[in-house]
């Protein structure tokens, strides 16, 4: 594995995570959470955890995001924080 790549993606992960909880739009937050999960799965793939990475890519980035979007569709997009 290449530690420079690892570090860059780790930074991305952290920024996506912070972005997901600060953005003032729940749909945007859901999408950023998807990006966060996807970056995370990349990170794990780099670390050799291929099965975990595969699961996170399908569960975290795929289905979780859809579930968030569905919940936001049924509630509201607006948020105060």
């Amino acid at each position, binding site marked *: 594995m290449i530690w420079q790549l690892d570090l860059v993606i780790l930074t991305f992960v952290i920024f996506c995570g912070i972005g997901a909880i600060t953005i003032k739009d729940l749909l945007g937050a859901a999408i950023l959470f998807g990006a966060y999960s996807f970056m995370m799965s990349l990170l794990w793939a780099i670390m050799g955890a291929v*099965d975990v*990475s595969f*699961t996170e890519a399908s569960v975290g980035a795929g289905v979780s995001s*859809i*579930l968030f979007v*569905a*919940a936001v569709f*049924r509630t509201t997009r607006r948020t105060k924080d």
Partner: protein
Amino acid sequence: MAFPGWGDPLSPASTHVSPYYIENTIEDTSVPNIVTAVLADYRGYDTMFETAVIFSAGIACLFLLRRMKRKKTDFRHYRHMATGITLRIEQGGKIHPTAKEFERIDGLWVPHDLIIRTTGRFIIPFIQIFALYVIAHGHYSPGGGFQGGVILGASFILFAISNDLRSALNRMGERLTAFFYTAGVSLYAGTGALCILLGANFLDYSALATILLVDPVTARSYGILIVEIGVGIAVMAVMVILYYNLVSAGKFDEGL
């Protein structure tokens, strides 16, 4: 003892239990993917409960959100397919079932985007085949029941998004989904119980050798495949039911 360095091959985590798995998986189960072997055999009992967690989540979602009765004040929309005229029928009324030229539509109905629907129709079979490949090929490559099941579930969700929820429900109704996730988890627990009946411990797949007519090591490999299929079915159905529930807020009619 200090905190082991990152990636240290001599840390206790890498030297105590896990070398056994790495060195003996092939002899014990003849499965090259060590993660699959540990997941479904050495620690198969955990995985059974993991499936049970998924099952509980599906049941919990149904229990919390599902609305069994329609309110009398609800209304339905019907669209005359030839002309595009929309009817709104109030107070729980229905259109006569023989009136085939009307289709029921959502309150937020918009004409279907042809591109999305066609792309969906085109891509869904490939996703499903890939999902089945992932389930079946979990012994040799990354993948297995969970990943494949989630992808299979995602293909149904994609169908529900690219068309509408009602047509997805026509293909894959609530009862069918419920059947699938009960069947999936029972397949897992049932395999385990079968091992007890055959005289071994719970989930000891080598006992299956007597009915599968193979040697115990191959029987373990087959046992892993069986439970992975069970997991795949259960996870697929639960993902679909979670989506149905959340997107229709428990009413199972209108959705994204």
